[in-house]
């Protein structure tokens, strides 16, 4: 294991982020604040409690998940796409590093960034609504697991994309809709029965449900199912990455 190389990639990626840290943090914090103003204060005040939790508090875990997913995908996909775009990937490919080390460096950095952002958003949310965390251990567990899984997905997208348009396409067309339809702002039980069935195919539903449970102890689905689905999704991403590196897909000719 080339630990120095993993650390080098990780530090390099993190410093890239810190260079523009203000933008990186400001934009998610502002959009979260907007969500609170619109959903929490303007609309939310007309809602009754959801499962005994005030609506503003209810959406906190979903909002953190929304940011976690989009930021993980964005950071990780850009992190690996950028060297492909500039050509500096030559160095990575000619270095004595294994694919596992490359993934650990890039995905580790991307996941760290989105976890930091998730915690910042949690702190921001605390300014607007009462937030309590029933199971902090599980909360962190879901946070890390989700960040890692979607950073892996982002890595896959960054390898697959052959232009900046495609890099935007998946987050825009897939991740955002899935998040909005995954019970971020509502309980799935509010949906008509037929749509409840449809919602079950959405992997984000399991993440939000499990994450919300770690906060308030209420969930649309059982925690074990949530955890199982998250792990399954992680396994799928890992398998795809293993295949990418085995075949050299879009990295080597």
């Amino acid at each position: 294991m080339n630990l120095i190389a993993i650390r080098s990639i990780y530090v390099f990626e993190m410093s890239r982020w810190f260079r523009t840290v203000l933008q990186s943090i400001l934009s998610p914090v502002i959009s979260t604040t907007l969500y609170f103003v619109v959903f929490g204060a303007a609309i939310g005040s007309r809602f009754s409690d959801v499962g005994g939790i005030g609506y503003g508090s209810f959406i906190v875990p979903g909002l953190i998940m929304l940011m976690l997913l989009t930021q993980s995908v964005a950071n990780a996909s850009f992190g690996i796409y950028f060297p492909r775009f500039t050509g500096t990937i030559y160095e990575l490919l000619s270095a004595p590093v294994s694919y596992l080390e490359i993934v650990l460096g890039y995905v580790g950095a991307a996941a760290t960034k989105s976890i930091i952002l998730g915690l910042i958003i949690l702190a921001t949310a605390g300014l607007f609504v009462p937030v309590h965390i029933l199971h902090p251990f599980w909360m962190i567990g879901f946070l890390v697991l989700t960040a890692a899984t979607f950073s892996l997905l982002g890595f896959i997208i960054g390898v697959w994309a052959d232009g900046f348009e495609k890099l935007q396409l998946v987050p825009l067309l897939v991740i955002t809709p899935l998040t909005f339809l995954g019970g971020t702002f509502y309980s799935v039980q509010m949906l008509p029965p037929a749509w409840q069935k449809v919602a079950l195919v959405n992997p984000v539903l399991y993440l939000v449900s499990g994450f919300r449970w770690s906060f308030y102890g209420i969930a649309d689905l059982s925690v074990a199912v949530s955890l199982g689905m998250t792990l399954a999704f992680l396994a799928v991403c890992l398998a795809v990455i293993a295949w990418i590196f085995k075949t050299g897909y879009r990295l080597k000719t």
Partner: protein
Amino acid sequence: MQSIIAIAGLAKTYAPRPPMGAFEALKSIDLDVRRGEIFALLGPNGAGKTTLINIVCGIVTATSGTVLVDGHDNVAEFRAARSRIGLVPQELHTDAFETVWKTVSFSRGLWGKPANPAFIEKILKDLSLWEKKDNRIMTLSGGMKRRVMIAKALAHEPQILFLDEPTAGVDVELRRDMWALVRRLRDSGVTIVLTTHYIQEAEEMADRVGVISAGALIVVEDKTTLMRKLGRKQLTLHLHQRIESIPAALGAHALELRPGGQDLVYTYDTNTDRSGIAALLQDVGAAGIRFTDLQTKESSLEEIFVSLVSKRS
């Protein structure tokens, strides 16, 4: 002496990318690079030079064949093989937003070497980059970026340095600096493999030369042997008066009359003991042809190269 790079039966066919069909870039290359030498790979654009280098370095996957780097298979033992190699690619691929210092230190880390600021400092000073160490790479000139690429390749103390077209688009001063550096590296025991299509460079720098054309190695030879073996000399007689055709009296000699009728060119092999010059001059005198000037010229590597490549195609 064991060769530091041993390439056997190396072939590469690029998969078809519509509308282009499959492309055979390398056809079964066998090549040994000796430890400590400067080896120049010569060839026209598209001959397969970069493909060959990229396979050795691990950027391109070979279709068949093997590469041993200091005895280590470059696929099965990629760590051992790659840790010995530094690569300066042809294109200027740099992290525009990073500083010189960071990007060069990053390269060292990527190769698993513990940080060594003193060593990085030495490299940057050697390459006249020290004053620019905190500059972002995007603010540097093309020549400076090329130096950064070299610094990155040297940051992990490689035993073999690949320079892919190192002097393409480089000014005279940098070229001179670069060759001085290459010589210093060679003196310290580093093996250098460079590609170029400037033959003068190979002629000036290399110990051995390989000529590659259309994916095949045509010849691999000591530079001096190659020049002796394939080199020709030309004797040019500048005549006092122009002539219409070569006089019959000189028919026995392989002469060529240049357009204009004032230069007679005699081409001869450098290898033969009897060049035939004396006989020629005697006959020229006997035919009553007077000449005002006489010069001889040895063919350059460039001419050898052109004749080799054109002979094949």
